């Protein structure tokens, strides 16, 4: 673990790698191996009367007053507009205000979560995974709480380094949390519903903190760049930076275009498909788009892309299972046997793991700008025309196709097999609907659907049917739960695919890449709910699945309390 971290320090364009090692890095490195060992003997701990560890995870009972003081404060909810207002006409004064807001807000939010953990049943709190999380949250809380007020650009740089390091350190949170809750959600300890609710709160809050942190870092980078670029007029502290021509303000994009979002994600998902199913010798299903393809909205693209990626992955996977070369033909219903086997297993619940944060610009916009490649899509009916309230798309905003991801190389044998099979998988149809108040993405596949009785487990992290993924989680130390990390893995491993395939082995990343963790759909819902949207799924068993993601337009505040429900109907 230690080796992994030192080999792969996170790099950013403006901040050196030297700062990445943080003071408490050692401490969690010390905790982690210990914890991972313990996790295997959790059952033993449950029976022993002694609390699990004497590690830093066990915080003194009498130190709690500090947390309670912070937890008593209300969370200041951010709206999408506020995020962009900070970034528009960025000045030093605004940047420092942003920094201090983040500095004051993060400990409050962390304190709320610490209190939540404290209210878990005692036995759950002794679970090593949960103890690790608890310890991480305490460390982060202390680090932000004790950081002095930020008054200069130099202090802001130091603050950004702290934020970066915390973002990096906390990448272990999702897998650890999921493992801890899955282990704890047994009838003796806590119900699956309570565990799910806790996880939803934790993950939603986590998104919120990361949005604040990443937005501030992105704004700081933008500001620093503007100073170094236009060095003549930056002598005064009031150098103004405006949103760039692509609509990026930090991690928010004010000109997300539905078709481009879908297209970017479909490229990634197709790549994932080719990487995962190299030996099936079939091309991924085509992704078609119709409806209001030119709808434009303000959003954090990573959030919608994460959801779409998860849905595309599920759709592609089950389309292959249903219509692939070794299964029934598309005109007759899929063999029920296959459907049943899948249902027993892990239907619909994929989430991949990738090594995150190894490329420059990890959480920043510049790298995304290379992804404006945009296949010619066919607006079938009633496309953009009557959306007069939306800004028209400027052709200049569409950049040339990106070059960084080479097309996959299929081995000759697989190409032959494909032509022998002589058929394509049925396409995935994405339909975009746009209203004054919301935009809906409907993802329709012909992947065989699932049984009506599965609906209730669809959104659970900890339902008994999810436990099969536990061992996968153990093999996945870090997870950002973002689309960015998938991109970076694909970018990294693209060149290794052919070389390793020739020698018969598969690269390490690809093994991990196809791990199914059972978190995809429930986490997608957390992302969708975060800005007031909804996600719903409807299955036609024997035929396919339709998923509906609705995102709310207008100035949405973050939704930090769990609302549940699949929304649309």
């Amino acid at each position: 673990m230690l080796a992994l971290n030192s080999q792969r320090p996170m790099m950013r364009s403006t901040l050196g790698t030297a700062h990445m090692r943080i003071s408490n890095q050692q401490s969690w490195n010390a905790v982690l191996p210990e914890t991972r060992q313990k996790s295997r003997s959790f059952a033993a701990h449950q029976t022993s009367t002694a609390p699990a560890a004497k590690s830093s995870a066990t915080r003194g009972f009498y130190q709690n007053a500090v947390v309670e003081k912070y937890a008593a404060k209300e969370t200041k909810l951010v709206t999408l507009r506020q995020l962009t207002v900070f970034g528009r006409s960025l000045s030093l004064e605004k940047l420092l205000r942003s920094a201090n807001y983040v500095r004051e807000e993060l400990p409050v939010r962390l304190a709320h979560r610490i209190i939540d953990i404290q209210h878990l049943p005692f036995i759950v709190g002794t679970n090593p995974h949960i103890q690790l999380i608890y310890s991480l949250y305490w460390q982060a809380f202390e680090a932000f709480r004790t950081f002095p007020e930020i008054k200069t650009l130099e202090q802001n740089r130091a603050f950004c380094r702290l934020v970066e390091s915390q973002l990096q350190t906390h990448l272990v949170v999702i897998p650890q949390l999921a493992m801890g809750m899955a282990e704890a959600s047994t009838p003796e300890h806590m119900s699956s519903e309570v565990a799910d609710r806790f996880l939803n709160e934790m993950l939603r809050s986590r998104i919120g903190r990361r949005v604040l942190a990443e937005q501030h870092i992105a704004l700081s980078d933008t500001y620093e760049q503007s100073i170094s670029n236009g060095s003549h007029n930056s002598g005064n502290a009031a150098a103004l930076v405006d949103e760039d021509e692509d609509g990026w303000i930090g991690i928010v994009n004010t000109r997300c275009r539905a078709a481009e979002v879908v297209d970017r994600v479909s490229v990634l998902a197709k790549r994932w498909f080719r990487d995962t199913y190299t030996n099936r010798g079939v091309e991924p299903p085509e992704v078609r788009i119709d409806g209001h393809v030119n709808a434009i909205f303000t959003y954090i693209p990573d959030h919608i892309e994460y959801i779409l990626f998860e849905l595309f992955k599920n759709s592609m996977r089950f389309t292959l299972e249903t219509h692939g070369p070794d299964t029934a033909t598309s005109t007759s219903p899929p063999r029920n046997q296959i459907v049943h086997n899948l249902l027993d297993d892990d239907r619909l619940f994929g989430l991949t793991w990738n090594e995150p944060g190894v490329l420059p610009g990890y959480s920043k916009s510049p790298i995304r700008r290379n992804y404006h490649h945009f296949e010619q899509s066919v607006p079938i009916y009633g496309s953009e025309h009557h959306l007069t309230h939306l800004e028209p798309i400027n052709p200049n905003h569409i950049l040339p196709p990106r070059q960084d991801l080479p097309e996959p190389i299929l081995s000759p044998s697989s190409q032959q097999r494909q032509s022998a099979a002589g058929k394509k998988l049925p396409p995935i149809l994405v339909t975009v609907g746009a209203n004054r108040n919301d935009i809906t993405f409907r993802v329709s596949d012909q992947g065989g659907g699932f049984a009506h009785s599965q609906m209730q487990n669809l959104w659970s992290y900890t339902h008994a049917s999810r436990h099969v993924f536990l061992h996968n989680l153990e093999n996945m130390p870090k997870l950002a739960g973002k689309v960015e990390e998938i991109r970076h893995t694909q970018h990294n491993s693209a060149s290794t695919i052919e070389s390793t395939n020739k020698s018969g082995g598969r690269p390490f990343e690809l093994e991990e890449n196809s791990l199914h963790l059972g978190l995809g759909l429930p986490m997608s819902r957390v992302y969708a709910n975060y800005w007031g949207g909804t996600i719903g799924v409807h299955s036609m068993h024997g035929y396919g699945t339709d998923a509906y993601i609705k995102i709310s337009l207008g100035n949405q505040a973050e939704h930090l309390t769990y609302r549940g429900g699949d929304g649309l109907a």
Partner: protein
Amino acid sequence: MKVYPQAAGRLEQQHSPPEDCMMTLVSRAHFQPYMSRPVALEKMGLSFLVDDDLAVDCVAERIWRSGSGVLARASGIRTNTTWASANSRVHEQAAAPITRVTLARLLDLGSSSTNSSNNNNANANINTTRESALLLHAELPKRLARRVKAIQKLPFIVGVNPHIRGIYQLYLDSFETLSNLPEPDDNDSTKLFTTTLKDLVASHTDVIPRLAKGFKECGKYMSKEDAAEFLDGMIYSRIAIRVLAEHHLALQDPIPGYIGVLNTSLSPTSLLKQTADYVQELCEINYGIAPEFELTGHLDTRITYISNHLEYIFMEILKNANRATVEHFVKLRQSGAVSRTESFPPPIQITVARGPDDVTIRFRDRGGGIPPDEMSRVFEYSYTTVPKSELDTDLSIFSSQSRQAMQAGVGGPIAGLGFGLPMSRIYAKYFGGSLELKSVGGHGLDVFLRVPNISRSDNKHII
């Protein structure tokens, strides 16, 4: 004479009340102390002089629920008016537990008549008929009585409405007629029962439109929730009564491919085509244009179901889809979003999917979808997407007849009364299926109709 709780308590302790004891219960509150002791009350053999109808209901129901099986004697609760005594039989029957009829039993009833085709056909048929008649003779009065009682509990002003009053009388008469029939234990009485039932079924055909009209007129006198609860109960029970009755009648002359009312090789595809053609015609008469429809998926699917139920649902969904598609299309054309030379609205896509446990049919239109705030209301009774002003004038204008037909269901002219979707959902849920809507705002609507496989032998669905 009034007996107050203390006195009654004393009576109860004695366990042998004076025979002439009459009790007036002024309100339910007085009755509370005895609610937990209905059996003791009954043992006391009290006759009540009751001026609170609700209290009587309470006693009757409590006695029943206590499982003491003293229904007959519960009717010993007498009131001092003929009005009340007329009702007591209704209450008695309404309080009796209804026998749960499973779908499997329904199928069994029918299959014995159709399977033994060769030798003992006539005999078997008679036996089946008698068995079925016996079941209905015991069952239907109880269910009718429950409906009568439900109407009695409506606010007085609602009951005064001519439509509601008419329905009340119809149910009351049907109840009286059926419960006065002799038990069908021989051929003649069975025949009598069957012919009577036939008349009753015929007289009930227009219940739903009348109910709809009545409730449209009574809207302001009842809360939405209360009205919905009442209507749900009425419609569910009505479907059950009709299924039972029509099944019995259909068993009299079996048709190949059917067991009673159940069509055992129903092709959703051909029913969809037929319905869609009809609705398309209606739509064209009404608007001058109509969308095409496309059928995809597992079109060779055959299921066991009641054709009428599916047809009703198809009709409602397709009418809505047609209307929404055309209106949205016209709007887009007027606003210039769609070229004026474009003369065909986008097609309605219908997909049939066959799974191991159920068949799902998806209706996908491009009629602009339903806004979120209306989405929560589409299954309300009396909700309609037809604008109010248009509806008010329409109903009185001759030229709007075709539009009324557009709104009408197979059960009669329910023009714009807004029963279509809620009733469709009840039909869908009736055998354990579902009807769900998913809107793609600004684009269109997906309607998912899930039809369970009711021919499975393990089907425990209760009617």
